[in-house]
């Protein structure tokens, strides 16, 4: 089972030009707002018509610009979960879930609806209307309604963005259970990298209508292929860099020379690129003994920003006076748990950080 998409569509600001293949597993589509993610889903569902290309699910061709084929949405058997859930306000929960089962005989339909209500933990809500439901309940109704027609592919547009934070993890677990049982191509659009990582088996990163990374999520998060992907996957520390040898680079913004575990470039034709490290990968080490070790640098605290359990420290590898402050791009952001920070917060400067060779990644630009 697989979904093959290769489409082009001109949008006001850019052209959506996407080509990928999704197997029978959840695929997260990550991108900033306005990257063309929703439009991509709408093209697959048959709600928008691409300018060019081909969409194929299993052995059924939905769209083919060459032959002029464009199967209408109602015949595609592709369910879409809308960002606002699109529950019919004039129908009860049970009527909403049964909407796509009109062709079934009445008793068979009510059996299916009852089964879905059980599966989505909506028992007792059968005769309620959407305006009396919470966001999480509405999401479950929308999911049950989408699954009712036994779709051959499931498309979810920002399924968690309308929910309160405390509901998200709960709904996320439910989605994971649903995906595990569903085992058909599932596309999930989100701008939240953590959601994308937790819910998808594979990842597709979209920027201004183009695929800028795709593949196993672990690989993309460990070694983003470009600065843009690094930023979208939440990397806070990126410095322009110049290669010195296969395994060492000069980080121009940070002002240091780094060794890398991964080789940088094979040819010296393109000596510049960027180097990055995630904020939680920066290690704090004791000055004595470690100071001369590989990729260990003295640093000074510029400012800090607290969240309930962690703290982000903005560090400079050079000592600067207040009169000539450093540009922000020169600063390293390190994220540590507060318990750990308690242990070195009162120590005198300079502190020492280690940028581990296998935490650093090189990006060709």
């Amino acid at each position: 089972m697989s979904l093959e998409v290769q489409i082009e569509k001109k949008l006001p600001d850019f052209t959506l030009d996407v080509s990928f293949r999704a197997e029978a597993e959840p695929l997260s589509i990550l991108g900033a707002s306005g990257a063309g993610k929703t439009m991509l889903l709408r093209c697959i569902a048959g709600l928008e018509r691409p300018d060019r290309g081909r969409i194929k699910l299993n052995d059924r061709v939905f769209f083919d610009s060459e032959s002029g084929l464009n199967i209408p949405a109602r015949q595609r058997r592709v369910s879409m979960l809308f960002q606002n859930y699109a529950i019919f306000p004039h129908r009860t929960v049970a009527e909403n879930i049964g909407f796509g089962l009109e062709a079934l005989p009445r008793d068979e339909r009510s059996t299916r609806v009852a089964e879905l209500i059980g599966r989505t933990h909506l028992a007792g809500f059968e005769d309620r209307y959407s305006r009396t439901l919470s966001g999480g309940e509405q999401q479950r109704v929308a999911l049950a309604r989408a699954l009712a027609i036994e779709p051959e592919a499931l498309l979810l547009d920002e399924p968690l963005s309308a929910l309160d934070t405390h509901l998200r993890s709960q709904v996320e677990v439910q989605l994971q259970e649903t995906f595990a049982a569903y085992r058909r191509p599932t596309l999930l659009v989100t701008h939240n990298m953590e959601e994308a990582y937790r819910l998808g088996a594979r990842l597709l990163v979209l920027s201004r209508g183009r695929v800028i990374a795709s593949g196993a999520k672990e690989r993309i998060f460990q070694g983003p292929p470009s600065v843009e992907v690094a930023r979208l996957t939440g990397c806070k520390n990126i410095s322009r860099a110049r290669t010195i040898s296969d395994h060492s680079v000069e980080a121009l913004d940070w002002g240091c020379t780094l060794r890398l575990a991964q080789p940088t470039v094979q040819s010296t034709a393109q000596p510049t690129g960027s180097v990055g490290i995630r904020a939680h990968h920066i290690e704090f080490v004791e000055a004595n003994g470690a100071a001369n070790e590989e990729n260990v640098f003295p640093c000074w605290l510029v400012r800090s920003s607290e969240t309930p359990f962690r703290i982000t420290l903005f560090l400079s590898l050079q000592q600067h006076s207040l009169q000539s402050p450093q540009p922000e791009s020169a600063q390293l952001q390190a994220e540590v748990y507060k318990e750990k920070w308690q242990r070195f917060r009162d120590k005198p400067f300079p502190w020492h950080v280690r940028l581990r060779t296998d935490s650093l990644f090189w990006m060709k630009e």
Partner: protein
Amino acid sequence: MRSGYNPEPMDWSPLWISIATSVTATVITLFLGLATAAWREGRKGSALALVDGIFLLPLVLPPTVVGFLLLLLFGRNGPLGQLFLKFDATIVFSWPATVIAATVVAFPLMYLTARAALEQVEPSLLQAARTLGASEWRVFREVALPLAWPGVLAGTILSFARALGEFGATLMLAGNIPGRTETIPIAIYFAVEANEMTQAATWCLIDIGISLALLAGLYYWTHLQAPERVRLARR
């Protein structure tokens, strides 16, 4: 019989003619306006601006212009008049003429309100219905229409009120034949002309009464009842 004063017995036929005409015209307008609004919904193009303009013209044109155009269309030499002649039917100066005139002037109100109501329906609801396998007809009947129903009903009431008040085009196309084409507004005009002020005043009060009841009912319905009815519309 008293001397010097000879009151004619009140002829109630204009009331029945007015109601029959308005009801018929409103039913036709409802279906025509809904169908046109549904067809127009979701279509784009500059040519459609002209179509919209034509649909709305009866709202702004003097009724005499509408009446004159209808005469050209349904007269003995008009294209539609010729067509009806083949079936031995004459439209001009007949009761159907009052219905045609009322329908044409009421149509823009129905079309405008129905379109506005359909446009208000959240597009994702219609799209969700499509992805769930519903045909366009089912999307319209089971999603768009029930949700747009308050607006459509408002349009129906406005259309009825407008049809009830129609005078100019009716007079030109249907004339004033007591008992056949004489509606309340026409009866008022000719009563005044014949200096029968009591009769004119009676008809005026009846007309005001019906219109006021309709508009007050509309206000009550849209402002106080609508949320409940939206939910019940499907039942």
